[in-house]
Structures are given as structure tokens and as C-alpha cells.
């Protein structure tokens, strides 16, 4: 095992322990915990056995394992950005709606003596 692999394993153990603590304190739900657990464990497996990734990469026709990992990572990041973008738009709309409702309720009526 090289230094990079040691670092990754330590980092994954650290993250999984933190996540488990969060689960215990009910900060995150069980399904979310499992999704991340599977993700981190697969990263660990790939780091320790890069040949697996190379095998998958050859299977899908990309060639190099690292390239496949980078492509997947970019796709994942784009997806997350898109999700955040949609969420922000929704938030924006909700804020507009609240501001508008409140503003109409607090209308400053014209003075009738003028």
C-alpha cells in the first residue's frame, strides 16, 4: 500500500465515524446514511484495488480507471449543482410569495381626507 492509499483509508474511516455519530444524534436519516456509506466504502475499495476500476473502465470502453472516476465525478458534481440550482429557484419563489402576501396585508391605505 502506498501513502495515498493510507491517507484515503484514514480519511474514509474518519468520515464514516463522523457520519455514524450524526446518525446516532439523528442529524441525518438512515437512508441518507446508507447512501453515503455505500459511496465512501466503494471509494475505499477502488483506492485499495484500482484494478477493479480499470476493469470496469475497460468494460464500458473508457480505457483508464482514473479517467472513468473523473468522468463520474464530473457528472455527479454537475447533477448536484443542478439540484441546488432548482432548490434555489424554488426558495426564491417561496420568498417572493411570502414577501408579497405580507406586503399586501400591510398595505398603507391612502388618506381619505386628501
Amino acid at each position, binding site marked *: 500500500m502506498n501513502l495515498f492509499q493510507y491517507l484515503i483509508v484514514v480519511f474514509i474511516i474518519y468520515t464514516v465515524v463522523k457520519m455514524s455519530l450524526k446518525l446516532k444524534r439523528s442529524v441525518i436519516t438512515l437512508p441518507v446514511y446508507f447512501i453515503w456509506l455505500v459511496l465512501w466504502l466503494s471509494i475505499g475499495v477502488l483506492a485499495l484495488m484500482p484494478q477493479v476500476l480499470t476493469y470496469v473502465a475497460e468494460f464500458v470502453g473508457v480505457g483508464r480507471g482514473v479517467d472513468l472516476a473523473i468522468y463520474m465525478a464530473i457528472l455527479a458534481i454537475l447533477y448536484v449543482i443542478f439540484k441546488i440550482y432548482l432548490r434555489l429557484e424554488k426558495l426564491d*419563489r417561496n*420568498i*417572493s410569495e411570502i414577501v*408579497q402576501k405580507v*406586503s*399586501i396585508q400591510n*398595505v*398603507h*391605505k*391612502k388618506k381619505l381626507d386628501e
Partner: protein
Amino acid sequence: MKTFIVIPAYNEEKRIGQVIQDLLGSGYENIVVVNDASSDKTDVIVKNCAVDCIDHIVNLGQGASLRTGTQYAVDQGADVVVHFDSDGQHQVKDIEKFTEKISDGYDVVIGSRYLGSQENIPFSKKYFIHKPGVWVNWILTGLKLTDAHNGFRAMNRNSAQKIRITQDRMAHASEIPAEIKFHDLKHAEVPVDIIYHEYGQNLRGGITVVVDFVKQKLIS
């Protein structure tokens, strides 16, 4: 026929007072100003006039202000809702042309700078903003008008309830023709004269409008 004038205002302390006085002087009694979280004295000036004033707590944009104002006007029993600018660009004498068309049975009436005398429209605005705007609107909304992004418009009660302005910022001006087409509303254009001040929609603003509108179509 109860006509309601909706005026969106954002930092218009210099002109809003005069605009309101002109409207009141011409006999328009039902006026609502939507103060879009101005940082100047717009709200103080408006609240001293014989008009209703709605304050947005945070700045939402012109589209949102029009939505708030239109909603309020409908709640107050308006038969006709007129969108009017707060910066003195629009002329009070033109309002009659809109309300007459509505009385004639049109659902929505839109002002056009290109049906009238076309005086004093700056060259750059005409050929780089309005004309391309007309084409972009035509392609995006399917409604061919002689002017794009003219904020002077009127609608009857039924249309005011139907037309949904979802764009908070400037792209609502493209959204309204799209809604007219969608709800198959009877529309007409009337010539209006616009007085240009030093600011308004520049080229970058025009591009932002298109981007906002396309974005909206993609995600909803």
C-alpha cells in the same frame, strides 16, 4: 368601470411624486404604488399622497412588484388594471386609449412605441434593443407585436386574474405576451409616446431578459 393604476417603484424619489400628482390631477383615483424595498425616500413621498402603498420588505424586482400590485388591484375589485411606470416615461394622457380599447372588448392592450410618431427613440435602443426584442419575443412566445418590453399595458379583470407573472425581474415583459397567447386573449396595441430619461433597459439588460426567460422555460 373601476380602473386601477399599478405603479412599481424602486428608488424613484425624484420622479414618483410628479407621476402620482399627474395621475391624480387627471382624475385617476385608484392608484397603488408597490415600493420594491427602495433605499431612498420613495416610500415617504408615496405615503404622503392620496394613493395606496404596498411595501416589499426585500427587493424582488419589477415583475414581482407588478404581480403584487395586480393582485391587490383585483382584490380591490378593479375592472381594469393599468401598468404604469414610476419614472415619468409614460404619459397620463395615453391611459384613455388603453381603457377605451378594453371597453371595446379587448382583454389586454399593450403600448407600442412603433405605432405612433416614433419621435425621440434613441437609435441604439431602436435597433439594438427593441427590434431584436420583437423578434426574440416572436420566437419565444409566438406573439408578434410591433414593440418589445413596453411596460405600458392594461388588462381587464378576467385577464389580470389569468395572466401569471412568474418572473420576478425584467423577463416578465416576455412572459406577458406568452400568457396572452396561451390563454388566447384578445389583444390590441395602441401607440404611446415614451419620454426617455438617462436610464432604462440597456443591451446587457436585454440579454438578461432573454436568458431569464429561456431558463424559466427549461426548468418549469
